[in-house]
């Protein structure tokens, strides 16, 4: 995701909106002008109308998916940060954990979903586990990179003042690692919603992925796109939220 946020001057925002408008107009024109059947491309107006009319269903499904994404995200961040801290405090662990984590992650996370679904069933638990897996590795790597950045001399300086390891961790390492840590967390937000949806499509009791699955089987493509729109909106909101928190926290330190 973008590391350098676009400067939000009025002209830039205007241009961004212009781009979006052009896209929507082209889409609507294509769909209506060529009389494309809904299974190829429904018109944007139809989709938005669908979102509105099915808002209760989509809202409930979104709630499901967002719950899975949030819990998995929280879990993943805890695991990722925890492991990175553990490695920093106990260096010998690095030789064990880093290769193991890399090995597990050489398989794309989504490939694990069949296994996780068999182990945890098709309830929310399996989705949370999948999201946690996806998020933890990214956060782990970013946090580790951040913690590794700390200047040796700064550590020695604090040691010379009698600071204990925990103190050093809290007052020096973590604050220094914060920018990279938060960048990793920001990048993982969108992934968490997407991974939740992918897993739902293989088996779930509810959620946006499940709605998409049902909609395909019921030949309701307007519904498919409506769910896609809602999913996209959810991801962006989540991304925006974490970005907002990031700016607040970094501003502090």
């Amino acid at each position, binding site marked *: 995701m973008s590391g350098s946020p676009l400067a939000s001057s009025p002209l830039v925002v205007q241009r961004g909106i212009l781009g979006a408008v052009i896209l929507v107009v082209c889409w609507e024109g294509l769909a209506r002008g060529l009389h494309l059947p809904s299974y190829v491309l429904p018109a944007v107006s139809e989709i938005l109308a669908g979102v509105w009319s099915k808002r209760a269903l989509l809202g409930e499904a979104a709630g499901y998916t967002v719950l899975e994404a949030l819990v998995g995200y929280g879990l993943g961040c805890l695991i990722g940060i925890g492991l990175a801290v553990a490695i920093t405090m106990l260096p010998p662990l690095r030789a064990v954990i880093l290769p193991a984590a890399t090995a597990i992650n050489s398989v794309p996370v989504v490939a694990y979903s069949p296994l996780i679904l068999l182990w945890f069933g098709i309830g929310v638990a399996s989705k949370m586990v999948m999201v946690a897996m996806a998020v933890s590795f990214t956060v782990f790597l970013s946090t580790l990179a951040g913690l590794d950045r700390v200047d040796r001399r700064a550590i020695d300086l604090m040691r010379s003042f009698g600071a204990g390891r925990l103190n050093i961790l809290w007052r020096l390492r973590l604050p220094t690692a914060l920018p990279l840590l938060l960048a990793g967390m920001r990048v993982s937000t969108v992934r968490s919603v997407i991974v939740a949806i992918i897993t739902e*499509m293989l*088996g*779930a009791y509810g959620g946006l992925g499940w709605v998409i699955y049902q909609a*395909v089987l019921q030949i*309701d493509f307007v519904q498919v796109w409506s769910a896609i729109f809602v999913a996209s909106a959810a991801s962006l909101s989540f991304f925006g939220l974490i970005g907002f928190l990031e700016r607040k926290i970094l501003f502090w330190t």
Partner: protein
Amino acid sequence: MLSRRHALAAFTAVALTVGSLPISLPAAAETLTKASLRLKWLPQAQFAGFYVALAKGYYKAEGIDLAINPGGPNLLTENLVATGADTFGLSGGTDSVFAARDKGLPVVCIGVSHQITPFIFVTRKDGPVKTLQDFKGKTVTTWFTGANHVLNGMLAKEGIKADELKIQPQQVSVTPFIDGNVDVITATYYNEYYTIQSRMPKDSLKTFVAEDYGITFPRDTLIVAEATAKEKPDLVKAFLRASLKGWKEAFADPKGAVDAVMAVAPTLDRPQQEFMLTEVKRLMTAGKAAQNGLFWIDPDAIKTAHDFFLKYGVISKSLDLAVAYDASFIESVPVAERRP
């Protein structure tokens, strides 16, 4: 050194000689028509006949270069056939064909594979569910790709409303039923019933069959796009002829049939596939098929199903069954070739 004139003369002589010989060149390789068949699920013995026909070259003999594409979760055969992504489809059943036509997808059914309902509802014999009425308040899992209609149909016949039970989407695994977390599980004769029986003895199970309640849902429907049916009727007939041959061969040589399927999906469990083929044969040769041949379209069963779906709102309007179900193609094949 050949002078140019000599070379030209020689060349002309050769050309004339060759040209005048009655050469019987091998008929320019018959251009085969490319087509594809989209199955309703991942490859398994349920589709053995098609794989046998492909392996034995029956489609090629009829002039079709066929590719068999498996289905899977998230794919609806009707969609793929309607958009032209696939030529033929083996789709869910009469219910999915009705639903597709209701939504305006231009698909036509040219044959029905399973003549009777392949779904059954399984429960423990020593459990709390003894009759259909006992379904009330229990946890019942089913698939929402067609089995749910069978369940609703049976419940409706007994005057039970769907919200009087806890109906949940069914998992990939039968473990929740085995572990007792689910009271009634949906199974197909040929697949899940086998898995359940491999973990629980058959006489500890009780089954509920749709036919006992006067309901039949024929399934596994062969479909094509309206355009294909109109413009390429010969292709459709050729496909049916080759498929029929393949299926009869599969029933005659079940071992070879399972071999053909395992060649495509090597990680399948052989004993389960052999069981599957036996059960599928029973479903395909049931009812009128014994007399009229495989893939028979029974107009009475279709009409009953149609009226049922109309009544319960699965389709929004009455459909023209003559357009949706075209038996002319299957009837063009001599009965002797169709009979199992």
